[in-house]
Every structure is written in C-alpha cells, then in structure tokens.
C-alpha cells in the first residue's frame, strides 16, 4: 500500500483522484469530472464525462456545452468510480444542486466542500456535516472581518429603501445563479408579493429554479415594461449591469448589491453601490471555523479565497492544515 492519502493530489487546475483518474471541479476539460456545483469557477463544459447532481447538470446544460456524457447522482447516493473509489454527493447549502463530495478509498475519507454555507436558504438543501480525514474547504470569506448578518436584516433594508422612495426603484445586483433566486425567495418569505422585475440575463435561470419547485412568485422582464411601471419595484440584474447603460431604462434606481463583499465599504464603493446588502451564499468566518471544528478532520486543506487567515487560525488551534493553490478561483463574483 502506498503512503496515506497519496491517491488524492492537488494540481493547479483541480483536485486529482488518482486511482479513478478523475478530477473534482477541474478548470480545464478532462476525461472524467466530478462537479460540486454550477458556478463557472467549478463547472465548465467539454469534459468527456460529467458526474454531478441532476440539478447541477441541468444548470450546466443551460450555461455550458455538456453534450458529452453526463451521470446524474442524487444526494446521499454513492457511486463507484474507477473500481476503487466511492463518491458520495452530500448537500452543501450553497446553491440549487450544490454538493460536497465525499471520496473514500482504502479506508481513507476525503471531503471536498466545493462552496458551502450554513445559513438556511429556501432555494436549496441545507449543508450536512460529514466526518472525514481530510477536509478540503473553501475560504472565500476566510477573514475574520467577514461575519454575515442575519438575512432578515438585509432584506429589511431592501424593503425600507423601497418604501422610503416610492418614486424610484431598487436595482439589486445579484449573481445570476443562486444569489438572485435566493434574494427573491427571501423577499417572498418576508411577504413581498409584488411582481419582481428581471434583467433578461436572469430569466432562464429563474425559470430553471421554478421548474425545480422553488417558488419565486410573479417575475417580469424589464424589457417588456415602461419605466413608469417599475416605480416602487424591485429589479434584479447581474452585478455587471449595475452601472451599465442598461440601467437608464429604470426609474431613478437606487443601486443595491447583494454580496458578502459588501461587508467592506471600499468594496461597495468600488461598485458604486448605494445600498450594500451583506447577503452571501458562502460560509462566513465563524461558520468556516466552526465547521472545521465540527468535522474535526486529521488535516484541513484550504482552497479558493483567503487561505492565509484560515491557515493561521488552524495553526493557532494546532490543527494540521495546508493551502492549495488552485488557479482561477479568486474572488468569486458572488
């Protein structure tokens, strides 16, 4: 038998599962890929075979070229890959279909979280803690300054801006996959029954969520309506459209953005955001650290974000840890 955990290797473009010759969230086209969720820094087209939850596959089909083989799996289902590796997809609570992947080989257990969060989210299945030897965690918000406030507070800010300015609209920049649908669903949960207007680029993903049973209420396309109709309404667009010419068709919009980065003033100002909403689909600092404590792995590998601080936290708690240098995983536009 070879050295412990030598079957799992970190390469710049992804995690390589050697005995099964497959990759987790590879950044380039490979023969066989396990994909945690549909965001572009984890999922891409062109793989020979893509193994992911059926929701993730549906999202990938919408966004990337996945015409080659796809193998759908259900949460909790274990499949055997390459004869000697068992892979189990476990909910990550990040976006619709998002999964952690548990890999078992020769009695050793490795969990790759992909992106995850611990807060309840009406649009996806909640995160589950799985014991393991190596815990490969994300660290997008791996700095102690990132503590996400309760979402009710942020939704409250949004509603208040709307009622304070009945002649304007509130334009919310939100990542088209996940964040947008979550903000809409949370607004619905808070009793906001009015139609919500969408930038054209959001339409298909919202439809996909609705087809998967997520109730988003009445949605309308900005392009189908007059400026006047949208006074006093919420409009959701991708972050890139916030300060775009496109927004000129809206009635004097208050620019909002829903993102964990909004915790830091400079970040909000760079985006020209007037109403920052600290809403994140990633674990905040306290959740990242609490999760490591709960999982209590032998070793923690950190990817994807601000590794140094989390590494330091592990060191202070005498936990074994290392940072993986994965390419293309910087500052997700979440």
């Amino acid at each position, binding site marked *: 038998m070879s050295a412990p955990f030598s079957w799992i290797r970190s390469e710049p473009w992804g995690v390589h599962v050697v005995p099964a010759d497959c990759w987790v969230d590879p950044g380039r086209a490979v023969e066989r890929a396990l994909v945690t969720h549909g965001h572009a820094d984890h999922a891409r087209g062109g793989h020979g075979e893509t193994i992911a939850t059926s929701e993730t596959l549906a999202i990938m089909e919408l966004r990337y070229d996945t015409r080659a083989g796809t193998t759908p799996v259900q949460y909790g289902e274990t499949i055997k890959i390459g004869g000697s590796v068992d892979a189990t997809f476990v909910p990550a609570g990040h976006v619709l279909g998002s999964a952690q992947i548990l890999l078992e080989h020769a009695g050793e257990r490795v969990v790759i979280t992909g992106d995850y969060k611990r807060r309840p989210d009406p649009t996806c299945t909640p995160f589950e803690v799985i014991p393991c030897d190596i815990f490969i965690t994300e660290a997008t918000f791996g*700095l*102690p*300054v990132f*503590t996400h*406030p309760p979402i009710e507070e942020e939704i409250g800010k949004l509603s208040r801006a709307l009622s304070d300015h009945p002649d304007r609209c509130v334009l919310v920049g939100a990542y088209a996959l996940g964040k947008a649908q979550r903000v809409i669903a949370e607004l619905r949960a808070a009793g906001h029954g009015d139609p919500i207007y969408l930038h054209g680029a959001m339409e298909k993903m919202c439809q996909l969520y609705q087809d998967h049973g997520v109730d988003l209420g009445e949605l309308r396309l900005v392009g189908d309506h007059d400026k006047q109709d949208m006074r006093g309404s919420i409009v959701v667009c991708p972050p890139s459209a916030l300060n775009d010419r496109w927004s000129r068709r809206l009635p004097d919009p208050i620019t909002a953005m829903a993102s964990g980065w909004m*915790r*830091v*003033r*400079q970040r*909000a*100002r*760079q985006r*020209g*955001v*007037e*109403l*920052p909403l600290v809403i994140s689909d990633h674990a905040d600092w306290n959740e990242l650290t609490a999760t490591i404590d709960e999982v209590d792995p032998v070793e923690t590998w950190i990817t994807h974000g*601000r590794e*140094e*601080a989390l590494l*330091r*936290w592990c060191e*202070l708690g005498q936990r074994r840890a290392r940072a993986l240098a994965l390419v293309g995983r910087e500052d997700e536009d979440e």
Partner: protein
Amino acid sequence: MKAFAALLDALVYTTSRNRKLSLLADYLRDTSDPDRGWAMAALTGELDFPAVKSSTIRNLMKDRVDPVLWSLSRDFVGDTAETASLLWPGGNSDVHPPSVAEVVELLANLTRASAPAELPKLLDQLNPNGRFALIKLATGGMRIGVSARLAKTAFAQAFDVAVEEVEEYWHALDAPYPELFAWAAEGGDPPDVSNRPRFRPFMLAHPLEDTVVDLTDFAVEWKWDGIRVQLVRVAGQTRLYSRSGDDISATFPELLDAMPLDAVLDGELLVRGSQQGGEIGGAASFNALQQRLGRKTVSKKMLAEFPAFVRLYDALIVEGEDLREWAWSKRRTALEKLIARLPESHFDLSSLVEARNFEHLAAIREGTREDAIEGLMLKRRDSAYIAGRKVGLWYKWKRDPLLVDCVLMYAQRGSGKRSSFYSDYTFGCWDGDPDQGAELLPVGKAYSGFTDAELKKLDRLVRQTTLNRFGPVREVERTLVFEVAFDSVHSSKRHKSGLAMRFPRIHRIRWDKPVHEADRIENLRSLIRD
C-alpha cells in the same frame, strides 16, 4: 449614535453632491440638540480628541485579536477604523447606544492613560456601524467627502437660511452651536457674535476675459502672488483667516501680535523678499511663503527666515464702523489713512497701478517682469464690499499662460524613481455651479510642475484621502485645488468634458483654496480657439 452612524454610512455610499446635501439636511432637521451640532463639528473636522490616536485603536486590537489575523484583515479592508469596527469582539447588537453628545463628553475627558480602559466600554455598547462611527469620531479624519463648505450649504438648505449668514456665524461660534440652531431651526434671534472674532466671506473677482473696462470707472491693483487673508481683531482678540475661512492664526503669530486696533482687513499674506514689489519692502516668491503654510507651530528660526506681512487691499470694518456698504474709493481713502497707524514691519498697502487707458494697461500687464506677480485686479470705484462673486464689480486679469483652477480627482503612481509616489494627477472642473449640485468632470492630467517636497506632500494627501482604488489609480476626496497652466485648449469628442488641454502642468498647488471655487468647464470652454 445610531442616526449619526447611519448618516456616515449613507454618506460613504453616496457620490452625488446633491444626495449628500439632502442626507445631511435630513439629519440636521430630524436630530435634536446637541447631537446634531456635535455631528456637524465632527463631520467638518472641528473636533479633536488628543487622547485617542489611530495607534490607540491598534493597541486595543492587539490585546484582542491575533496580530497576523489583524494585519491580514487590515490589509484587505484598507482602513484601521473599519477593520477594528468589524473585528471588535462585541457582536452585532446595540440595544442602548450612547448619544453623540455622551460620546463626545466621554472622549473629551479621556487622557492617554484612561483611554485604553474607557474606550472599550463605549465600543461594547455599539454594533459594527456604530463602532466605525465612534472610531472615526474619536480619531478625526472622517474622509467621507464632506467639506466644511458642504456641511454649511446643507445646514442652509435644511433650515432655508442664506449660506453666507451661516458662514458668518459659524466661525464665531463653538460646537455644538446651540445659538446657530436656535436661530435657523427654531426661528430665534440671530446669534450675537458682535464681540467675537469671525470670518466675513471674501469679495471675489471674475476673470476679465474679453471684457474691456473704462478706467475712469475702475481702479487697478496688482494681483500679488501670496494667499488672500482676512485679519480680524475684535475686543482685543485677533484671528487670521484663509480664503476658505479656516483659522490660520496659529501659523502666523507675529501678525496677531502686530495688530494694534480693532478692524477687519482684507489683504495678501506674503513673506519678505525682493521678488514682488521692489528690493526694499518687497515680497518673496510664493515658494518662500509655502515654507510657512500649514504649520501648527512656528519656530523662531522660521519667523526670522521667512517673516510674514500683509499687503492690504481693503478695509471692511474699522474700530466698530462697518465700511462694507461704502464705495471702494471711499474705503480706499480710509485704508490709506489707516495704514499710518499700522506697524510698517508687518503691513503695507497694495499700491494702485496708474494707466492712461485700457490699452496702456494691457501694455503694463504684458511688460510685467516680476514673475511672481499674478496679474492685475480691476475694481469698480463705486463697488460696495459684497461677499461672493458679483458680476461687473471686480475682475482679475491674470498674466499668460492660460491658467485654470482645477480639483484633484485621481492620482496614479509614477514611473522610474517616482514609482513609489502618486505623482500623476487627473484633475477636473465643475460642470455647473458647485453649490447647486454640479459635479466635477476630468479635464486633464499632469505630472510636472511641483518640487520634490511638494510631491511628498501630495503623495501623503493622496494616501490619506483615498476614496477608491482601481489598480494603480486612486480616486481621492475632492479637497485640493491645482492652478494648472496650459498652452491652449481644444474641443474634443473623446473626453466627457468635451475638451482637451495642451501641455497642462501644475502651476501652483492651492492648498488654501476651497474646491467649490475652482473653475467651471464653461470658463475653460470659453478659452477654446479651435
């Protein structure tokens, strides 16, 4: 503290001057005394709590957060106050936050020794936004793009009073300005400021451009190259104010001591030398004056090396008599009489320029050899002293090259030996009346025309007033005016301002000039000779 913290935050996220004004005005109307007065003082930088420094905050954090985690966080956030507000082990609730007044009282009573024990008690009562506001309040330097001028304009807007009046009273009163609010907000009597030194807004000139004036109606003076000041003595107390109304008394103590009578005088502050106005009794170049500006205390050596004096232009008030309604010529006579009573060592009179007619005057202007003279001032002989810039009364006729006052907007790191300095500057002009909510539009870029010492000072200003970072470029708070020299200006479709300058360079850094007095795009446009 809740409302104040919310105001700060809203100001941080607002770039439009109009929205800032209405945010401030709403706050002033909705908040009670004395909180709103303290808030105004805090926003305009008039509060100083010497016991609390940025290092006090860093030391507090050292005891509470791992130093590595602190510095990683601080680097990411880019601001000590904000980082501390987020990392303070307090949590998110603020059930009974203290009022601004309570905070100010506590901070004012802190000593270096008591601060480390007392500040945490305050921080514990606040949520992150409140903590941010508290730390900004305590350490000064709000850097949220609110100038004193903006605050006064907002005050005037909130209570529908004239901004000139606000300006007059403001400088004579102390925070939290109860008399000011009693007058403006509650309809009480105007504050009685008769026995307190205060600033009167300056009378200003328009550029002459193509206007031709008749010299029988206009008197002519040199435009000296120093800084415009107002010297005020009331009931034995003397103050020196800069153009923007800032009290610069501490920087020029010798002038305060030399003022022998109660009066309000308008003149040019200069340093002795031989470059402006002759070998004997003349003035040095602006660079010499620069050595004295901006210092909080002055050494004996400085006083001896760069002795300051005021070259008088006008008298507003003399021994209780208000001359501002008088015609300029009558005020001039009074000033000429007054000068005999002022010590020669610290005062002289700005002489009049005699010309036969306008053409002759143009020739005099062209022939001026003294580099340090900025040009000519033309003053209507019958003009009363009216605050602000009223058309047709006073003109300034600057010498070539073309000069325009611009506001610093962005700075970029230089290359070569300047690579560690922000040495490339983008500046802008107003696209309308800045007091009516005009915005700045970039008009040009320059990287020359300043000394190494000035570069260091500029670099520090850029770092201290950064609003945003875009790669190597920093957007800065609008606080600094450059007098930009350029050869010509042309219309250009490529620029948002619609024009492009040829060979712009920094002619002079106007540390003293308020940004709302910078030029408008239309002034620049009128110079287009395509």
